[in-house]
């Protein structure tokens, strides 16, 4: 693109890492690395599926656009992680997204939680974005170059998600009485699923330097949360953590419905291409 024909309406594709590029790479992940990538990919996929619902339903049109951008980022991350994971087993991203059964998914319970009202969605976004940022900002140093490359793109995007969620936590918490009440309720409903994010699971030992140990993220996460919630004049919800198990294939009741909807068309036409 020459500077001369640049204008405020120019359109360029950019040159970031795309899932299509990963599919063409020779690199095949080790089985454990693939299973690790699957979990991160599933988190992003299920979150994107949830956020996609908001498009055409957001509180203001500008927010439709904002939430769609976040959903698009997440689906991009999901496609990259799943494509890479699939290379270990000769599966495509779509084989993994559409033809696994619920117990074969490795997503955490947090991303499976329903959208609820805007405050609950923002509460979930707030936790996910802060968690993913802590995770990806370390995963860029992964000994696995592909995971590091995916994380390098994702961390910048998630940084924006963090900012988006923070802005809304502040506005809802300090806006009106009603919005504050809803924000507090949203955080309370979300907080039981925080613990699972930072719980180590057996695979982490197998992955070694290719992955990031969840428990090591907790301290920075907590301090980032405290900074925002203090400014929002809110307390960290004092609710007990729920028993997780998503990384082992034990999911919340919500996931089945979500998958039924997501997979219905693909499963009606097995083997078809779209």
């Amino acid at each position, binding site marked *: *693109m020459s*500077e001369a024909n*640049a*204008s*405020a*309406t*120019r*359109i*360029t*594709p*950019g040159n970031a890492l795309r899932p299509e590029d990963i599919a063409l790479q020779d690199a095949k992940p080790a089985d454990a690395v693939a299973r690790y990538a699957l979990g991160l990919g599933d988190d992003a996929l299920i979150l994107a599926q949830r956020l996609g619902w908001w498009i055409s339903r957001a509180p*203001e049109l*500008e927010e439709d*656009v*904002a939430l769609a*951008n976040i959903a698009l980022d997440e689906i991009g991350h999901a496609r990259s992680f799943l494509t890479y994971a699939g290379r270990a087993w000769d599966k495509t991203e779509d084989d993994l997204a559409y033809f696994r059964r619920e117990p074969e998914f490795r997503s955490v319970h947090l991303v499976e939680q329903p959208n609820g009202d805007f405050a609950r969605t923002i509460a979930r976004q707030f936790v996910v974005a802060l968690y993913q940022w802590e995770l990806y900002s370390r995963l860029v140093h992964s000994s696995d170059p592909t995971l590091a490359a995916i994380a390098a793109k994702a961390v910048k995007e998630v940084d924006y998600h963090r*900012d*988006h969620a923070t*802005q809304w936590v502040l*506005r809802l918490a300090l806006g009106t009485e009603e919005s504050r009440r809803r924000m507090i309720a949203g955080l309370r409903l979300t907080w039981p699923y925080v613990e699972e994010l930072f719980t180590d699971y057996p695979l982490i030992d197998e992955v070694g330097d290719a992955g990031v140990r969840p428990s090591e993220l907790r301290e920075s996460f907590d301090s980032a949360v405290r900074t925002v919630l203090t400014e929002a004049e809110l307390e960290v919800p004092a609710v007990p953590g729920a028993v997780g198990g998503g990384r082992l294939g034990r999911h919340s009741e919500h996931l089945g419905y979500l998958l039924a909807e997501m997979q219905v068309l693909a499963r009606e036409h097995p083997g078809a291409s779209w």
Partner: protein
Amino acid sequence: MTGGSTTGDDGATAPSSGLHEERAAWPLWEVFVRSSRGLSHVHAGSLHAPDAEMAVRNARDLYTRRNEGVSLWVVPASAIITSDPDAKDAFFESPQGKDYRHATYYTKSEGVKHL
């Protein structure tokens, strides 16, 4: 996308400008995008946002989805002062006829280069 509506002739009436509930809608912001380093910010359009912080974020989401920009300005629409179009003749008359401000006013001399 749009439909028959763009023809504007399907018989609907224009929105009336009657009273409507004032719920303090988000104010209007004008958005300016710098498409590349070295170029000026150019007006791209407008949007609604509750405050400047959200305005600049909404502008990023709305006006740079396809790498259209490297920098953004948002300005409250109410802060823009415009020249008065009714006084256009008086306002913009002076430069008219002052052709000597333009290089093309001067005759080129044969053989003189780089001038």
